[in-house]
């Protein structure tokens, strides 16, 4: 048996670096490919689709210029799309937190009728396909004239992210000792003051992770943007713009790759800046089995 252990250990010592290398290549390569194509002239790509690396002297930023300049000046207007995405995502993030922080506090600390049933409500958000919600919302927003407005889309994003936000925050809040609150109460703080002046500063890392998480969900979202905003190009988010333009053949692929980079870059920056914060927030509670 000891033999088997030795043989296996030796094999694993060889296999493990290979597995790690393959994993990194497989996950990173598509993004590298995106970046490399975005700085290539299109003629060059069509001639040599298999060539990855081209000399830096042939690199071009024409693609970025074309994708960012407004449609009136002959570009693709991604700057406008970026602004739309940013407005919707920032608004959704701020409002989601405003709604979910008191909610998470209530669920983690207070006893009230129906506290145990709250989970079912949240389950509904995930159990029912978003395409199912999309139909009546599509109808409703058409009637209210909210279709084609960024406000309507923001509202949907809040509903989609509040449950997960409450869940993540609740996990964190329940680690803050209750005696702190009791002390605050004895000092004469009201409940709201306690939440604002005692709990929030302590929960700042969780709130931050949560904010970034919600921002990323809103920034990446596609289906509702497609349903609500598709009619007017001025309303498109970056995701929607890229999806709509990549369906046609008028815009060259390298220009769209530049669009992809523009769409992906903010997320990658946020993610690498706050990686530890985010991964810990996401899996909080998972290690409890």
């Amino acid at each position: 048996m000891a033999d088997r252990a030795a043989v296996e250990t030796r094999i694993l010592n060889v296999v493990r670096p290979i597995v790690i290398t393959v994993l990194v290549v497989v996950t990173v390569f598509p993004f590298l490919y995106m970046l490399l194509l975005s700085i290539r002239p299109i003629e060059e790509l069509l001639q040599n689709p298999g060539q990855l690396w081209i000399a830096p002297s042939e690199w071009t930023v024409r693609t970025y210029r074309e994708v960012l300049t407004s449609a009136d000046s002959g570009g693709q207007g991604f700057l406008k799309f970026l602004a739309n995405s940013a407005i919707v995502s920032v608004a959704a993030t701020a409002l989601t937190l405003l709604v979910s922080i008191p909610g998470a506090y209530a669920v983690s600390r207070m006893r009230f009728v129906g506290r145990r049933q709250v989970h079912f409500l949240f389950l509904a958000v995930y159990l029912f396909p978003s395409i199912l919600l999309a139909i009546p919302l599509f109808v409703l927003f058409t009637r209210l004239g909210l279709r084609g407005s960024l406000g309507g889309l923001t509202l949907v994003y809040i509903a989609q992210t509040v449950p997960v936000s409450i869940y993540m925050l609740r996990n964190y809040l329940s680690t803050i000792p209750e005696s702190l609150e009791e002390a605050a109460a004895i000092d004469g703080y009201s409940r709201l003051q306690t939440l604002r002046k005692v709990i929030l500063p302590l929960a700042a890392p969780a709130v931050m992770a949560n904010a970034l998480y919600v921002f990323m969900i809103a920034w990446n979202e596609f289906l509702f943007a497609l349903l609500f905003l598709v009619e007017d190009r001025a309303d498109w988010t970056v995701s929607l713009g890229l999806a709509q333009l990549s369906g046609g053949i008028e815009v060259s692929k390298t220009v769209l790759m530049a669009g992809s980079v523009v769409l992906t870059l903010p997320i990658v920056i946020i993610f690498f800046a706050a990686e530890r914060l985010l991964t810990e927030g996401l899996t909080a509670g998972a290690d409890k089995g």
Partner: protein
Amino acid sequence: MSLATETPPRPEERPQPGKKPLTARQRENRAGLAYLSPTLIVVLVVVVLPIIWTVMLAFQRIRLINLRRAGVFGEYSMTNLETVLTSPGFWSSLWTTVVYTVGSTFGSIVLGLIAALALRAPFRGRTLVRASVLLPYVAPVVAVTFVWNVLLSPQFGLANDWGMRFLGWDRPIAFLSQREYALNLLGWQVDIPLALLTVIMFEAWRYFPFAFLFLLARLQAVPHDLEEAARVDGAAPTQVFRHILLPQLSAVIALLCVLRFIMTFNKFDDVYLLTGGGAGTEVVSVRVYEFLTARFDVGAAAAQALVLALGLVVLLAIYMRFLAPRVEGED
């Protein structure tokens, strides 16, 4: 409770923590609901009411044109459900959804497990590697589907160019638009559903980081002395995995199965963006979208979405009843 009712405190008294007098409890109850009410309102308006409305729409003959006169008291009928359930395309798309979901769930969890085991022990640059492995999961779906589309394109894709140059393919393979591909396996001709397999591969690629995160977190909580003892006793790594790590992971794996299954079953973006639902990849959610936006048949779309949701509930019920490992009471 009973103690509190016997001695109701005077209103100006601050309630003692632990004693729970009735008024304090009522106040807490009210405050709790007040704090949660914004959440409840948003979820009610944008999630619960739409679900109820979908159920109503599913039983009414409604198209987008006559939507104005549709209301609660419209004519209810089973026509939509009948049309949907008897149309041949629906059952095949439901089957596609199941295959796609099971394949993607399985693929992403297996890949995630491999990644978690490989990245478990510390090494130089591990943090960076761990972060880059998570990239497919956090990146915008539109961007990654677009890159895959270009990468696999028969005209200017890297995969086909390298395949023909280095692997000796005769002609480019249309990974995302070819329904069947005749694969020559040791003299046997096997037809494989190429586009569907490609989409499943994409899903496994995009969501394995999710499984990886959960599994890694759990792996790091496994007590070291347990493994150490086994190793001292001469257990091989595969035995350690089989008898020590796997039992510790089983609860997380079960949870991941359920989560990934639900999320993939309802997924729309990935398939829509990769293939548009063509070439044998039409999952139900894409079909619903087609009914809604191409045929403007709101009623039939709602009926299909409803069947999709019910299908998921049934599958989950079966899972919970027969397959799920017994979980001790939560909280």
